[in-house]
């Protein structure tokens, strides 16, 4: 499967996606926030510095909001990483969240982890699992992660091969299980090891996710029973109606019903706890965004501090968060964030 960009699909342009999201007459998200006194939405602080190291990936998943894949070449340079490290050195931000694409494919990935680790930061790496066994040069990633106490967060949309492979590609499930075993072997996901290994569930289709606790219990039971693998927590995430998932929704005739479901499930408690209130997202080219989804829609932060080279912590802490119709994805039902359900 090729990325939308390689296909020359209209949705490879963020403006086309935003046009689609705004043309059906759905109630504007801003109005929903106005009704509960949350507009304009402001940050509560900047606790998480989420760096997107690039769109390059060894997988091409059906729902990917990044439109990542082997045909994407955009990656963060060491110069941009250095700007980020300088910001982190001067700030009290404790968590650095690395994502992609497959962040490990960035040639400066290990250097960045070592430097961020030397600053004493807690590092999260969003690892797609299959990168670990994709090539010999990645086989020692579990040991490298362990050395720097990196928290590993990995997508596994289901504990069955059928569902996982439909979303992430043929054979991905078996390779993911193999990678999980390698992570378990160095202590990841094993109680008492201090090495955190969390999985991410997102629905394999146009439905909302169910409650995190019961899904986590299913995952733990089934993965242990069938494959002998372990992990710490399951983060449940709602699929955002952007990029490839937006294309799927339209192609499958599910778009209007899915949007309506998200809107009807609007939850004020989830709205007050959205991740953009304590997270700053940095694009591969150094531009700043309120979240990774805004980044993919090219909705930069408001204000004059829009790039790591002009980082103004105070201005960013007081910015007004940029909203659009896709934001319904984070406020539906039990809420959704990179750390799972929010309410």
């Amino acid at each position, binding site marked *: 499967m090729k990325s939308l960009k390689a296909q020359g699909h209209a949705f490879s342009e963020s403006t086309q996606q935003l046009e689609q999201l705004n043309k059906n007459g759905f109630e504007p998200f801003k109005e929903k926030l106005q009704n509960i006194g949350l507009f304009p939405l402001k940050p509560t602080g900047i606790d998480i510095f989420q760096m997107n190291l690039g769109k390059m990936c060894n997988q091409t998943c059906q729902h990917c909001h990044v439109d990542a894949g082997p045909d994407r070449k955009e990656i963060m340079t060491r110069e941009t990483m250095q700007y980020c490290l300088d910001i982190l050195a001067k700030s009290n931000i404790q968590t650095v969240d690395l994502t992609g694409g497959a962040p490990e494919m960035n040639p400066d990935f290990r250097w960045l982890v070592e430097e961020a680790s030397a600053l004493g930061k807690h590092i999260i790496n969003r690892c797609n699992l299959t990168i670990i066994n994709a090539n010999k040069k990645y086989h020692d990633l579990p040991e490298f992660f362990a050395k720097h106490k990196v928290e590993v967060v990995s997508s596994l949309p*289901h504990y*069955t091969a*059928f*569902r996982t492979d439909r979303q992430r590609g043929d054979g991905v499930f078996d390779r993911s299980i193999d990678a999980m075993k390698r992570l378990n072997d160095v202590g990841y996901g094993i109680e008492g090891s201090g090495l955190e290994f969390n999985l991410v569930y997102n*629905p394999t*289709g146009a*439905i*909302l*996710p*169910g*409650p995190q606790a*019961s*899904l986590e219990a*299913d995952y733990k039971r089934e993965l242990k029973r069938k494959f002998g693998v372990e992990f710490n927590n399951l983060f449940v995430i709602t699929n955002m109606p952007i990029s490839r998932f937006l294309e799927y929704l339209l192609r499958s005739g599910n778009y209007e019903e899915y949007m*309506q479901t998200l809107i009807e499930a609007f939850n004020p408690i989830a709205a007050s706890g959205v991740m953009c209130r304590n997270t700053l997202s940095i694009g591969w080219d150094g531009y700043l965004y309120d979240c990774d989804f805004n980044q993919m829609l090219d909705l930069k932060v408001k204000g004059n501090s829009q790039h790591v080279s002009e980082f103004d912590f105070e201005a960013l802490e007081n910015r007004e968060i940029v909203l659009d119709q896709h934001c319904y994805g984070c406020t539906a039902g039990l809420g959704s964030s990179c750390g799972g359900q929010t309410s």
Partner: protein
Amino acid sequence: METYYNPEDLKKFGKIGDFQKDLADKFFDYYGEVFKEGALTAREKSLIALAVAHTVQCPYCIDAYTSDTLEKGCTEEQLMEAVHVAGAIRGGASLVHGVQMMNQAKKKMM
């Protein structure tokens, strides 16, 4: 094209209260209570609802409880097994009356 069943009508279910509010309120309160987590889990109740939906052949209920069981983490295999439970009970309900037929046949015939 006009049909007896319109998927859009499911969204209007709550409007049955426009003609008789008190009974509708009582029904929806009861409905909500029934599907809460109890001695049976919400997931088990949803699978029962899916099987019953097939027995009463309600397309609204089939759509609604297909989504609901999937959202609650059921697999496609579990959904189909629930439908087979409905099918087995329906088929069994017909066949068990075969005993009545046999009784009558034996009574009538030499």
